[in-house]
């Protein structure tokens, strides 16, 4: 009887807590996306540029139409003016930016990303979804691979090193940690220099051979070959700092009283590691892992640019260069939602697994 009561009360409190979190997250995303809309539109200035573009292209069109050759100049100008007005009204550019920004926001938040202004996907579609969808796998493949390698290698190595604390290997790895001060693209330049120019054994950039091989296996092999250098660059730049911080983390947790207690009882080292060190530290490890998966594309712009990798980062860079606001906002909105969903999942996970959080925040 009391057990079910407690459960019901806990569930009630949990759903209240989660409800509040969803609301807070939604407000957060809305404000974040709205700020992005303002920045990406230069506070409305991009629309002035667009208006000018429309004016030039309409004027060009009218002048090039042989049917308009006989029109007197002022009638022709009137025709141009009319068409420009139509086009501006069709795109809603006659309203002040502050109204339109609200409209952009509503569309972005409901994930109606619309059509790009002048970019198109390789398949020829103007839909923002199609454009982003075409580039997303490339980024996921590259950064997913690199981050997975870094994560598992670092956690595994850190566990081992924390057991052999103070050994020569341990000291070497710690001594190498400052090398992570330089980002991946920086090591990328060196790797390209060495393995693509001095000893040309790997491609300097791109994602697949040109022209792409017909055979699926050959295609996969070619992609794998192109991935080696960027993945290596990311791993080199992150691995030592990752091992360093995980090692510190494990060292702190393996000096807890309950671990000493287990050691005193004479439990085998493997068991202690699994049950007494890894189990209580699982939450921070999972948190770190999920946030890493989400954060993977934030550094993508420059690394993809250096390796000429056709991913989201390159796309965003091109979109910003061409002032293609729908694509920029689309990218940011998708990122924001992914981040929010991750944070929310983590909240649920913490609420379920951690008794201290289960009671809800004080």
């Amino acid at each position: 009887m009391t057990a079910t009561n407690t459960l019901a009360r806990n569930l009630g409190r949990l759903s209240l807590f989660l409800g509040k979190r969803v609301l807070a997250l939604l407000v957060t995303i809305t404000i974040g996306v709205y700020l992005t809309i303002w920045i990406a539109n230069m506070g409305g200035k991009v629309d002035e540029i667009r208006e000018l573009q429309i004016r030039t292209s309409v004027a060009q069109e009218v002048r090039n139409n042989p049917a308009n050759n006989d029109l007197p100049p002022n009638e022709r100008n009137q025709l141009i003016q009319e068409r420009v007005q139509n086009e501006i009204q069709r795109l809603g550019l006659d309203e002040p930016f502050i109204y339109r920004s609200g409209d952009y926001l509503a569309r972005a938040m409901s994930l109606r990303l619309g059509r790009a202004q002048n970019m198109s996907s390789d398949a020829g579609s103007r839909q923002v979804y199609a454009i982003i969808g075409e580039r997303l796998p490339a980024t996921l493949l590259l950064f997913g691979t690199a981050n997975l390698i870094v994560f598992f290698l670092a956690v595994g190595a850190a566990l081992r090193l924390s057991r052999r604390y103070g050994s020569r290997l341990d000291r070497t790895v710690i001594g190498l940690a400052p090398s992570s001060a330089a980002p991946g693209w920086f090591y990328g330049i060196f790797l390209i220099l060495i393995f693509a120019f001095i000893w040309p054994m790997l491609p300097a950039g791109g994602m697949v051979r040109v022209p792409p091989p017909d055979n699926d296996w050959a295609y996969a092999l070619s992609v794998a070959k192109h991935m080696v250098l960027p993945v290596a660059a990311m791993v080199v730049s992150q691995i030592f700092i990752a091992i360093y911080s995980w090692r510190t983390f494990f060292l702190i947790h393996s000096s807890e009283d309950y671990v000493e207690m287990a050691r005193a009882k004479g439990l085998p080292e493997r068991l202690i590691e699994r049950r007494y060190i890894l189990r209580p530290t699982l939450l921070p490890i999972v948190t770190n892992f999920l946030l890493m998966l989400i954060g993977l594309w934030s550094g993508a712009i420059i690394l993809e640019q250096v390796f000429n990798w056709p991913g989201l980062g390159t796309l965003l860079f091109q979109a910003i260069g061409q002032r293609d606001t729908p694509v920029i906002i689309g990218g940011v909105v998708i990122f924001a939602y992914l981040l929010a969903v991750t944070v929310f999942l983590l909240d649920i996970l913490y609420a379920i697994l951690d008794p201290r959080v289960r009671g809800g925040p004080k």
Partner: protein
Amino acid sequence: MNRWLDGLKQLRDYPSALAGLAIITFLVALSVYTVIAIPYGTAIERWRGGEHWQRNPVNAGPVWANRLLGGDLPATQTVDSQGAERTVEPFPGGRRISMPLSLDFQAGDFPSELSVFLQADFEERQPFVRLTWQRPDGERIPLGSYKIGAEERIALSQDRALQRRLGAPAHVGLFAEDPTAAEPTVQTGTHQLIVDAIVFEEDADVSADLVAYGQVHGLAGTDHQRRSLMLALLWGTPIALAFGLIATVGTTITTLIIAAAGVWFGGWVDAIIQRLTEINMILPLLPVLVMVGTLYSTNIWLILAVVVALGIFSAGIKTYRAMLLPIREAPYIEAARAYGAGNGRIVFRYMIPRILPVLLPTFVTLIPTYVFLEASLAVLGLGDPSLPTWGKLLNAAQEQSALYHGFLYWVLEPAALLMLTGLGFAMLGFALDRVFNPRLRSV
């Protein structure tokens, strides 16, 4: 205070910290020297290119690198007429001035270009100059005759007629044993450029400089616009340090104060700070910076301002909050309240100083992150348009396909300085971390 001094004394036990400190001292000294030796205005003026660099070769590597690898590529040699033996023969209506410029050429390869710079001092009638080349074996080759103005550059290597006559461009044709051979060899020894000038006025005079542009040049080499990379390497140092330091100070200190205020006041203040931090986490830093750089301006101070503005409510607030929360409940804070300390006093004198030692390592390791951020933007082509920086050298090298053409120095020099900065601060930061971080000291 004692705690700080003790900690700093302990640093002596860490060789990596000393190495880091040495590197940082070197970089700071280099910055101070640069700012004094080449004033800001001059540096920007020169980096714009043009006149100042016309006696530098195009795309020449550093001399020392070539010598270290055992090469004997020619360095730039300049011979001026000041030291030359002048013979003056007056004739009715003018004078004939003859000056041989001797060039002792011993390198194993040809110069990359050959030019003569002539300066004339006259009132109305332009002097007339005839140039003749005399090779070590005594052969004389007439180069041509020119009517010259006050400042004249005669680019012998670009003289098509001369090239046809010699069978190769002047810098090869004049120096080769046999210019028409498939792989011509260099004729070493003393070459002479004989400048015969005829001036028509009483006070008129002519002076000449012969420049045999090297294939290697100076300590740092040159780029595609003949600019010495040294200028950008030198000026990149104070800019990188200033950017890194200001961005770090700007972000950490504001973040710390805000976090401390949030923890101390709690309630809605804390809630608002938390929400702002979450909003800020959604805005991806690099894309926003790229947007600002592309759409507004690439001025480095504007970018710095945006970096600081976006860094104020950074994820660091969450970390600091976690550190400050237990401190709020500490007895000494209660004691402070009991004697009537105000909110400001508690935040600034009691809470923040308490976690400063723990933050010092983070602070030091954060500096290179911002140095590299500036370089990243420059590599993306969003560097400040007028400032010479390390990142802009990398960007220029990439645009000119330096790696493809084998101009490795162009990439390696700025990269080495960037790496040095990163390592210097990171090594000091990691050592500080072990000294000041109590959690690490216990293990």
